[in-house]
């Protein structure tokens, strides 16, 4: 179960940059930590802190109201690179629950949806408008059910796959869903594959 997502409102963190990769979001050396909780302090670590560990005051995440903002607005290919789910857990640890960008790294996008974070893809012109709104500290609000993002007096529709929307709204755990609804189909597949590709079931060989 992740936290169900229905509506959300607050400020947006402007990140007017392309290719913000998961090494920037969560530097690899912190991957030695095996916990999922408490990773917010490592999010964007090398941009938030200098090499002596002091806060870099003018970095956006170190300034109010962005240090408590639940939205991020970014350019193309956000979350590209490494598959590390810690990038998503760290962003969640900051209190962010919705990321708006012109595009996402695919694994990151998928990881978001499994952790109660809503990724929204919008065209570059729209994101430019939202970036300006975030920079001028306008309030963002999103309603997942109606697939609507509102900023000031402007409303923007966004796409999301129907099943992903349901899963986010209900905080469903995908593993449970699959085990409950598809157990028979999975077993049938295995029976048929074992007949057609028996070398994949030569289990004594795999030991």
């Amino acid at each position, binding site marked *: 179960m992740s936290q169900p997502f229905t509506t959300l409102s607050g400020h947006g963190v402007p990140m007017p940059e392309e290719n913000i990769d998961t090494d920037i979001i969560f530097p690899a050396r912190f991957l030695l930590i095996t916990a999922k909780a408490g990773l917010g302090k490592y999010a964007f670590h090398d941009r938030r802190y200098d090499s002596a560990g002091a806060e870099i005051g003018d970095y956006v995440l170190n300034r109010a109201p962005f240090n408590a903002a639940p939205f991020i607005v970014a350019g193309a290919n956000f979350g590209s690179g490494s598959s590390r789910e810690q990038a998503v857990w760290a962003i969640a640890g900051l209190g962010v629950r919705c990321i708006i960008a012109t595009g996402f790294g695919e694994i990151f996008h998928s990881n978001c949806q*499994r952790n109660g974070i809503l990724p929204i893809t919008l065209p570059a012109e729209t994101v430019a408008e939202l970036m300006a709104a975030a920079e001028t500290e306008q309030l963002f609000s999103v309603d997942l059910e109606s697939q609507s993002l509102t900023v000031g007096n402007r409303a923007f529709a966004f796409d999301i796959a129907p*099943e992903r929307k349901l899963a986010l709204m209900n905080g469903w755990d*995908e593993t449970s869903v699959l085990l409950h609804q598809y157990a028979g189909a999975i077993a049938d597949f295995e029976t048929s594959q074992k007949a057609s590709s028996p070398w994949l079931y030569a289990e004594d060989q795999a*030991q």
Partner: protein
Amino acid sequence: MTAYTLYEKLWNAHAVAEMPGGETLLYIDRQILHEVSSPQAFVAMREAGRQLRRPETHIAVADHAVPTRSPRADGIRHGTIEDAQAASQIAELETNVRDFSVPYADLDGAEQGIVHVIGPESGFTLPGTTIVCGDSHTTTHGAFGALAFGIGASEQGTVMAAQCLRQKRAKTMRIDLVGQRHPLVFAKDIALSIIARIGADGAAGHAVEFTGEAVRAMSMAERMTLCNMIIEAGSRVGLVAPDDVTFAFLKGRRLAPKGALWDQAVAAWRNLASDADAAYDRVIEVDVAALVPQVSWGTTPDQTLPIDAAMPDPALLPEGPERRQAEKALAYMGLAPGQSLTSVPITHAFIGSCTNGRIEDIRAAAAIAQGRKVAPGIKAIVVPGSAATRAAAEAEGLDRILIEAGFEWRLAGCSMCVAMNDDRLKPGERCASTSNRNFEGRQGPGGRTHLMSPAMAAAAAIAGHIADVRDYDAREYVA
């Protein structure tokens, strides 16, 4: 009759059910686990009281955070790891594989190595299969005609318990490699040039199949390099149709089918190639005869140039993202607009990783290093991709050639590609690297990375600056 691409054949053969909303429940034949991305998946299994549905379809290994040196003469690493967090992460993996009966390639065993090197070496990676791993470079295994992609920790738990994942079918893209390349232009150069051409997200949403005479002429190692790097163009899936080169590589490997099952499997694998009239959503052609060695200059892999080029001048670029990115990258990299690539001094050279840590890569580096010396003050390390690769290189005498030239010869692991162990750059240090990512801080906070082929990295180590390997005669070394 409908014509299918290799990707579509793999997809259709693993579709368990069509799901509402246009997604497919895809059966996963194989999963590879490593110490860094799997702990949370095992925690989820324990919390839910679940067992692995088919533990024998998994293999686990420690690679990302392991040290590549041992204080012991015999190279044993167990019990010698100074970083307490890394030691504890490896211990946690070992507890998990014991508790859940997962086959494990022991840290000090003959099969240890980088996930994407040992999968193929052990015959765990097979054509026609679906393979996942909590690592974005899982694209590597596509070189065998397997549908292989990187996933997050939550998805790993789903595969452990259900042997399936909900997936959306990708669009298809074919990259035709035509022509004959210069002998010192490698798969790495071809991959970097493609990424520079189409951009760091240029293949997003697409499954990419590499075709053409230049692919057919490649070894499995080079095909793996190509598929490995396609994630750097935003694609989760790279593919090469299996052929006799593939089958010759796999035959006799420990986990490859044997006897009659082998013959039956090869017959099935021969049908995987894309049908002649199959349609792709996008096709591009690359003339490899026109390519020279490639080097990345910036902080994304698409910021790559031919070795004879100079740094871009942001002032000459149109106002917009490309200009902004060039300015940011030049500043981070400490480079000047218009500066030539070959004038850039290095402090480090790294030869290894899942991209270029195979025996062919070590041979290419040794061919340049033989009879030459690493420039004074340069730290140059060679980290074989696996214990088996290391042993094979030693049997050929490559370790001696490299050590005599001044390279350090290390134990297998991810090392300076991900910089989770003590192999990392300090701020401002600069590395000629055969790895896959030149991201900010990737090789250590403030470190600067230039991606290139193993031969190019060896040439840079010897010159002390980025160099054109075509100026160096490759030696016919005698083992």
